[in-house]
């Protein structure tokens, strides 16, 4: 899923400081799963903003909506009749949400309420870790199912660097050296030779380096299936 962290209340309050009536729009997708932009978080943010504004003696009216997904126009269209009633909208979806909203409702102001961080998963309740860098050319099968593009600080393809010490990356004591894990896994499986082949230079054109990407599924575009 896409993982995000909520922006500080200070930052969000500054965004809407001149507004008297706003909408907070959550999303039932990834941000609900990572507990940052679902119904509960939307309600908590609304209450927190109201408390702050009442404290200032500057009340604010806040309505809430939680869209099925903010990354699909059909669901974004769900607020078409009411979105104009507000001075601004805070989106608690990932970075895709406020953009889809901005593209559909050109006269409205949409503020991002979260910082979108990475593609990952929960390793324990409350802890999410990056697992995918969206490079566009998945090759994890070459590395025992562990991605060195996303999980090695240098995205090395042919083994660890000199900064690997006791399975830990030099950038941070809490960051495992994924190459240490890859090699250990292969050794335990008795298949270390799998790593002997030199991986060629990676073509980063499929990654973000090639510019904004687009995925087209012709059969769906044509409506055949």
């Amino acid at each position, binding site marked *: 899923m896409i993982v995000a962290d909520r922006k500080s*209340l200070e930052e969000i309050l500054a965004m809407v400081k001149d507004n008297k009536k706003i909408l907070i729009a959550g999303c039932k997708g990834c941000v609900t799963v990572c507990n940052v932009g679902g119904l509960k978080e939307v*309600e*908590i943010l609304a*209450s*927190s903003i109201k*408390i*702050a504004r009442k*404290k200032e*003696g500057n*009340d604010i009216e806040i309505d809430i909506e939680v869209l099925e997904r903010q990354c699909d126009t059909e669901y974004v269209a769900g607020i078409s009749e009411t979105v104009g009633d507000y001075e601004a909208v805070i989106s608690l979806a990932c970075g895709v949400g406020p953009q889809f909203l901005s593209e559909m409702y050109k006269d409205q102001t949409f503020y991002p309420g979260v910082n979108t961080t990475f593609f990952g998963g929960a390793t324990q309740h409350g802890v999410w870790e990056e697992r995918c860098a969206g490079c566009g050319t998945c090759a994890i099968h070459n590395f025992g199912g562990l991605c060195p593009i996303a999980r090695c600080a240098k995205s090395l393809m042919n083994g660890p660097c000199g900064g690997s010490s006791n399975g830990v990356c030099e950038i941070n004591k809490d960051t495992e050296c994924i190459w240490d894990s890859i090699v250990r896994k292969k050794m335990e499986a008795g298949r270390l030779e799998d790593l002997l082949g030199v991986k060629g230079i990676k073509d980063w054109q499929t990654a973000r380096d090639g510019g904004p990407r687009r995925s087209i599924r012709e059969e769906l575009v044509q409506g055949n299936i």
Partner: protein
Amino acid sequence: MRLSYSADIKVIQVPCTGRVDILHLLNAIEDGADGVYVAGCLEGECHYIEGNLKAKRKVEYVKKTLTELGIEPERVAMYNLSSAQGARFAEIANEMADKIKALGPTPVKNTHAA
């Protein structure tokens, strides 16, 4: 026991403090409560295993939020006592009421207090 305690306290009963939500606490503050505390069972003695521990974490979350908003976090508190400790209940009620009186009225100005 017929114990008396501060008349400023409004008691809201829940089946277990595990039912208390962050939003209940925030909404109380939002609606103009000067303070709000949760009186849960003693730690380790929750009939539902960890309802009171969950409430404790929620109280901590709200304290953090209030701090971020420049409001005294002491306005929200968690207490633990058993249902057999009536005298302690009255003591806590008075203690919390005194603490809130010392802090003064809530800075959250309300135009339509609940």
